[in-house]
C-alpha cells in the first residue's frame, strides 16, 4: 500500500515535469493542463490532460510526451485521458509558470474574463501590459494573434523591443 502511494506520487512527479512543446520553459503542471495523475489497482497510470485551445496542435504532442516519459520511468501501462470540463483558462497558469514566462521575455496573462455572456467592447479599454524586458508599462498591442493560439504580439514604447504576451482566456 505504501509502495503504491509512493509510486503514484512518483508518477505524478514524472508527468508534472514534462515540458510544454510550444513553451518549453514551462512544465505541463506550470501551464495548468495536467488535471491529475492516478495509479489504478491494476497498476495503470492514468494521466488527465485538458487542451488550452480547441485547435491547439500541441495537444497530441503533449499526450505522446507524457506517455513516453511515464514509460521511460518504468510504468508499462499508461493511459492519457482528455478532460474538457471545466475548460482551461489562463488563470490555471501557476505563479511559478508566470514567473518563468516573464523570465523568458513573455508577458504573463492578467486575470481571465468572468463567465457569462461576453460583452462586445468597441471603445479602447486596453489594460496595461508590462514589458517583460524593461518593466515599462508604456506598451502597445501589435497583433492579437501570434505564432501560437495562446499568445499576442506586443511592443514596448520605452525599450522599443517587441515581446509576446499570453492572452487571457
Amino acid at each position, binding site marked *: 500500500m505504501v509502495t503504491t502511494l509512493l509510486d503514484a506520487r512518483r508518477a505524478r512527479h514524472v508527468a508534472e515535469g514534462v515540458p510544454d512543446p510550444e513553451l518549453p520553459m514551462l512544465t505541463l503542471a506550470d501551464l495548468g493542463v495536467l488535471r491529475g495523475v492516478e495509479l489504478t489497482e491494476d497498476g495503470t497510470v492514468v494521466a*488527465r490532460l485538458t*487542451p488550452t*485551445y*480547441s*485547435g*491547439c*496542435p500541441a*495537444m*497530441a504532442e503533449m*499526450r505522446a510526451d507524457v506517455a513516453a516519459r511515464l514509460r521511460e520511468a518504468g510504468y508499462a501501462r499508461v*493511459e*492519457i*485521458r*482528455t*478532460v*474538457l*470540463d*471545466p*475548460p*482551461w*483558462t489562463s488563470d490555471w497558469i501557476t505563479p511559478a509558470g508566470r514567473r518563468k514566462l516573464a523570465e523568458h521575455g513573455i508577458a504573463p496573462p492578467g486575470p481571465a*474574463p468572468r463567465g457569462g*455572456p*461576453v460583452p*462586445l*467592447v*468597441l471603445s479602447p479599454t486596453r489594460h496595461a501590459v508590462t514589458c517583460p524586458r524593461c518593466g515599462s508599462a508604456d506598451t502597445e498591442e*501589435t*497583433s*492579437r*494573434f*501570434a*505564432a501560437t*493560439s495562446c499568445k499576442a*504580439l506586443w511592443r514596448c514604447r520605452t525599450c522599443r523591443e517587441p515581446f509576446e504576451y499570453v*492572452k487571457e*482566456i
Partner: protein
Amino acid sequence: MSDDHVYMTLAEGHEDDTRWAYGTGFEDPLHGVDTTVPEGIDAGELAALCVALADDALVSAQRLAEWITRAPELEEEVALANIGLDLLGQARLLYSRAGQVDGTGRDEDAYAYVRDAGDFHNVRLAELPNGDFAFAIVRLLVLSSWRLAHFEQLASHPDPVLAAIATKGVKELAYHRQYAAEWAVRLGDGTQESHRRMRRAQEQVAPYLGELFTACDVRDEVVTVLRQVTEAAGLPMPVYRPLPGSGRDGEHTEHLAPLLAELQGVARAHPEATW
C-alpha cells in the same frame, strides 16, 4: 525516437490507427472522455446538431486558411489563420462527438474527408468564395457573432460533452468576434473606398443571413451586436433578402464542391496512407 530526418520519424510505426487531421498516428480528440449519452436526449438530433456546427467550422476554417499568403498584412494573415485553427479544433471535437452519438462510430476523418457536398450541412455563407478583405470581415463578424451567441446557449445543453465543447468555444469565439468587429469599425469608418467595400460586402452577405436562424433562436443577440458594430462603423444595418433553400438541408452553392475537392483530394486518393 530516431530523428535523422523529419520524414523518417513521420514514417515510423503509428500503432493501429490511421488519421489525417494532423497527420496519422494521433488519437481521437475526445479520447478518454466519458462518451455516455444522457437519457432523454434524442441521439439523432444531437448528432445532426454536432455535424452542422462542425461543418460550419470546417468550411470556414478552409476559407480562412486560403487567406494565408494573400492577406493585406502579415498580422492579419496570422490572425485569420489562428481563427481558422480554433474553428478546425472545434470541428474535430464536434465530429468526434457526432460519431459517438449517432451509433455509426465514425471518426472525425470519416465526416471531414469522405462526404460529398450534398451531405454537408453548413450554412451557405461559410462556403462563399473569399472575395476581398471587407467581405472576409463582414462574413466573420456575422458568423462569429452567431456562433458565439449559439455556443453561449449550448453551454447549458443536457449533453455534457457538447456543453463542454461549447463552453470552451465561447472564449475563442469572443476573440474572433472582437477581431472582426474592430476591423468592421476601422473599414466602415475609414476611407470612402473602405466604406464602399464594406457596403458592398454587406449586400453580398444579406441573402445568406436567414438560414443562420432556422435551427436556433439567437436572432436578438446577434442583431444587438450587429447594430452596435454598424452604428460605430457608420454603416447601415444589413437588410434581409432571403434566398430559397438552406445549406442546413444540404442545398449548397456551386462553391462548396470545389472547396471540398481541395480539402479531401489527398485523403481520398490515398485512403490507407500513413505519414
